[in-house]
């Protein structure tokens, strides 16, 4: 039985539908990220899971028991969940230890047990030495660790995180990202993590649910979300890509100015005549000064450099294939320098091309 099931979940405020027919299932111990741009409904979904928001349609159940349905919402305190908030919500009137102990005391544990478990979890998050400090005396990262400890120490059935790293500076964010994953690996708590930052999602999640305009567009493992986007939105939102519209006919995909045999693609394309949308990542193409040896029959096109931007780790070129109206972004290593207007050869790796639709 799945730990958490969202079934046809919707939430409307007046005529505005913020969450639209969301289905999602989490197995026990799974870590799922809700990823999407701001306003896509991911936080509302999370707050419905927590019991703070009543759904307009659909249901949420945990271990088979319905927790939320329209008109019948189990209050948050009876859901055996815990949550980490964007603002951390560390209570300023309690010390670090008191903050962490709060949930345990509500579970009516003996004070010895409470003490032991608080000490243990503070050690895990490396905060033992600050147990008696008040939150005002802590840095942002330290407060974040307290929030983590407070949420994990109660051994929740589901852990919810709402943009937990958005208030941290870049270096700390990266560190905490690994910390969160490390804690998950250690405790295997079923986790729903909301973020708009795809690298955060990639680094932490077992599966990512990409949301847009209230709907889930795709749920998949992080590398598949990147390599095999199934909607135009996912392809464009995750990483950078070139979206190419084409047409399938006679075992070939006809594109503007050139064609690809369907057999060369990494996934099967049904051979019926229809329009098709391809996602070609800039990394899946290469530029050459002279015509390369076309191994495995990879397509090679002659092109002209139209624009270039140096990004530090790589060059970002925009090239213009001859006899085509296309503009393609291509990534190249720092030392591979081409001038604007230079004629180049463009090599495409069809294995990495994703069929979006």
């Amino acid at each position, binding site marked *: 039985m799945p730990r958490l099931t969202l079934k046809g979940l919707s939430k409307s405020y007046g005529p505005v539908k913020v969450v639209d027919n969301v289905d999602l299932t989490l197995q026990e111990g799974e870590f799922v990220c809700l990823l999407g741009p701001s306003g896509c409904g991911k936080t509302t979904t999370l707050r419905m899971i*927590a*019991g*703070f928001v009543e759904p307009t349609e659909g*249901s949420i*159940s945990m271990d*088979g*028991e*319905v927790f939320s349905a329209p*008109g*019948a*919402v*189990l*209050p*948050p*305190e*009876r*859901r*055996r*969940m*815990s*949550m980490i*908030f*964007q*603002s*951390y*919500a560390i*209570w*300023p*009137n309690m010390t670090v230890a008191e903050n962490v102990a*709060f*949930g345990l005391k*509500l*579970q009516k544990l003996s004070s010895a047990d409470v003490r032991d478990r608080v000490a243990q979890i503070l050690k895990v998050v490396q905060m033992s030495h600050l147990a008696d400090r008040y939150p005002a005396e802590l840095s942002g990262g330290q407060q974040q660790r307290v*929030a983590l400890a*407070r*949420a994990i120490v*109660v051994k929740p059935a589901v852990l*919810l995180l709402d943009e937990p790293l958005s208030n941290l500076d870049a270096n700390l964010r990266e560190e905490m990202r690994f910390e969160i994953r490390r804690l998950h690996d250690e405790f295997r708590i079923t986790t729903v993590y909301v973020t708009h930052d795809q690298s955060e999602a990639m680094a932490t999640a077992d599966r990512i649910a990409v949301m847009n305009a209230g709907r889930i567009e795709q749920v998949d493992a992080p590398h598949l979300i990147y390599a095999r986007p199934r909607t135009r939105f996912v392809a464009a939102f995750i990483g950078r890509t070139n979206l190419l519209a084409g047409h399938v006919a006679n075992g070939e995909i006809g594109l503007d100015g050139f064609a690809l045999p369907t057999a060369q693609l990494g996934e099967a394309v049904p051979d019926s005549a229809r329009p098709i949308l391809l996602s070609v990542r800039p990394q899946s193409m290469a530029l050459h000064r002279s015509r390369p040896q076309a191994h495995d029959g990879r397509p090679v096109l002659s092109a002209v450099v139209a624009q270039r931007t140096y990004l530090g780790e790589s060059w970002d070129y925009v090239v213009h294939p001859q006899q085509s109206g296309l503009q393609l972004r291509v990534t190249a290593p720092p030392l591979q320098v081409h001038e604007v207007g230079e004629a180049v050869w463009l090599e495409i790796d069809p294995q990495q091309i994703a069929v979006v639709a």
Partner: protein
Amino acid sequence: MTETAAILPKAAAEEARRPAWLRRLRYLEPSNLLWILLVAALLFLVAVPIGKLLIVSFEQQGTGAFTLSNYATAYGRARYLEALANSLMLGALSSLLSVIFAVPMAWAVSRTDMPGKGFTWAIVMGAFIMPPYLGAVGWILLAGPNSGFLNQAWTWLTGLQAPLVNVYTFFGLALVIALHSFPLIFIFVKSALDLVSSEMEDAANILGAGTSTAMRKITLPLVWPAILGGIIVVFLETVALFGTPAIIGIPARINVVTTQLWQFFEYPVRVEVAAAYAMPLLLITVGMITVQKLLLARKGFVSQTGKGGERRPIKLGRWRWAVLGYCGFVGALAVVMPLMVLLQASFAKAWGRGLAWSNLTFENYAYLLFRHEMALTSIWNTLWFSAAAATAAVCIAVLVAYIVARKLVPFGSALAFLAMAPFVIPGIVMAIGFYAAYAAPPIALYGTALIIILAFTARFLPIAFANSAAAVRAVHPEMEEAARILGGGRLRTIARITAPLIIRSLIGGWLIVFIVASRELSAAVFLVGPRTRTMAVLLYDLSEAGNFEVLAAFGGLLLALTLILVAIGMKLAGRDFMLRRN
């Protein structure tokens, strides 16, 4: 449907068969019940008295039949209309004088390097906590045309018989009122000035404007909404004030709305006419708020420009002493001089005999404390009425503020509106509404402590609400959600998380309500019975008992009590707890 039933566990499936409302009941939060109680409380405290006032104004005495004759009576005499006009003029003059007192002081404290800012704060605080009717008595002692200390000193200095100042004039009345109202404008304007960035003035300076031009053209216009808001509050307070006009206005032969209302309460009591006569006060209030909205609708003001930029004190040079002198002057008028004469009188055998060892006595205090029939009772009444009213007001206010801030119920803003409504209802109108609604059977609260406590609660609910709303807003909702998701119910969360976080602010709010209630006269004077007189009412009664020495001593007791409370407040809720603007 069958599929759903299969997914639902057994208990839930049973639930589904029950009527919908019963199912909802299981998930009902206690807050919904509380909401109903609060609506009832607010209706009882605010809507019913005002509604009753409105209804009664159209009722015939005795029969309750519909009639317009109350309005005909209330506005049928030139004298009554004149009182109305007097009130309006008095309100305007007092507001103007208050602005003249308050704005330069606020500017000096907020924007300049004037020395003695602590002293200026003390003056404002002193003027704020001194009950206005006590100041009025002080000013009678100071500026009675023949006997006042100021006039006697003037005669002694110049040999002129004509008095220098006469408190028994329209201007005298307005001045005395303004001297105890200006702190309201000060608080408003100072907090607005604190938000004006120095860069605003720098920008004017760099274009060639001097300090005073920058102040006139840039700084003051930016805080205009605060000044206007202050003017409106002072105007409304003045129009609704009873004590000072009764003490000074009657000898000065100035009849105002409140003293006229009092006349309608003489035997036989004509509540119906009083209700009809109170209506313009409500209309004026509504009108002023509308005017304020219209005036401020278009321009951007400091409240919108936010906190950006740094703030530097303006260097005044030699002028700093002149500015301090002005503050000292206002302080002398508002606090020091009235307080000195009152203290002198309270320790005098006969205050007319002036300062002399042979005139010194503790008898006035001893009489009040040990032999007066009502003094101790009234002190006790004051303490517990005020405490009860403050507790009730803060409890209701914090619950409403919480429910509104957390959007726990639909139409929460209606609750907030009701809680804030008494702000625009003059205290005396409120009291008459309470009298009309609850004095007579079947409720028959006349002469009980309860009716006074309820009236105080309603009257000061807005203060408590503004305070509580600010306190609740300061607590991020996630603070509570964090506790709930860890297993704390709504009530436990409030007790363990929210309450500790807002308790300091609430104590401050409680004390403010307590202090203003302990000196409230306008509402109390219509509602007290023989054994429920408060200090303010007894002080008012003493003012017609012909013994200024005892009156002054009682005023001294009231002030001592207030000072103790203020000291407690500063200790518990911060030094500026009374002058903070929420």
